[in-house]
């Protein structure tokens, strides 16, 4: 069964550094998403991406964050100047259409020291 894959599974970074989290969505999907889950809290929406542009973003997704689909298979989340509070699990998801259910990867655990 096709799946969403995310790398790395765990990223440890010093505060103030930049990180790039990578995702390979399901191959025929057109809609891509990033969510995060701070330890002990609920999963929160960050951004959705369709047709090579952001279609929706949350208040969390400020100028510190950016997304890119650099080629036909990868979808990346870049976090600039990381802060301690950016420590969380980051999940990538993809969907065939906007209304079809989203399928999630296993996440990248980001630890900011």
């Amino acid at each position, binding site marked *: 069964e096709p799946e*969403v894959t*995310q790398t790395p599974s765990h990223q440890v970074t010093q505060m103030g550094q930049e990180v790039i989290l990578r995702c390979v969505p399901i191959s025929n999907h057109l*809609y891509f*998403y990033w*969510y995060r889950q701070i330890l002990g*809290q*609920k*999963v*929160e*929406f960050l951004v*959705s991406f369709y047709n090579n542009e952001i*279609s*929706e973003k*949350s208040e969390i997704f400020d100028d510190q964050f950016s997304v890119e689909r650099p080629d036909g298979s990868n979808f990346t989340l870049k976090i600039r100047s990381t802060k301690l509070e950016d420590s969380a699990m980051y*999940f990538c998801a993809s*969907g065939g259409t*906007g*209304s079809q*259910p*989203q*399928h*999630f*990867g*296993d*996440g990248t*655990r980001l630890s900011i020291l």
Partner: protein
Amino acid sequence: QKEVEQDPGPLSVPEGAIVSLNCTYSNSAFQYFMWYRQYSRKGPELLMYTYSSGNKEDGRFTAQVDKSSKYISLFIRDSQPSDSATYLCAMTLEGTYKYIFGTGTRLKVLA
């Protein structure tokens, strides 16, 4: 009032029991309703996806939506120890595709 409310549990049941998991929501504009299962250190795994009020069955799982009461449920029949996980409800508002999740209910099925 939170948009989506879900009892965090933990909920412990014996193997073979019927499990009922619930979410309530405040905004009548929610239109799509999903249930995900999340094992420790893993991503959410889609279990059920519904749009209209009523029941939808898939194997041991039944999803129920009551839009008039703003209430959704997931029933698990003949529960197994492998069902032990956190169950997340999620829903989307009309005109948007972002998911709004509940806090998740931790379920333990005891052998």
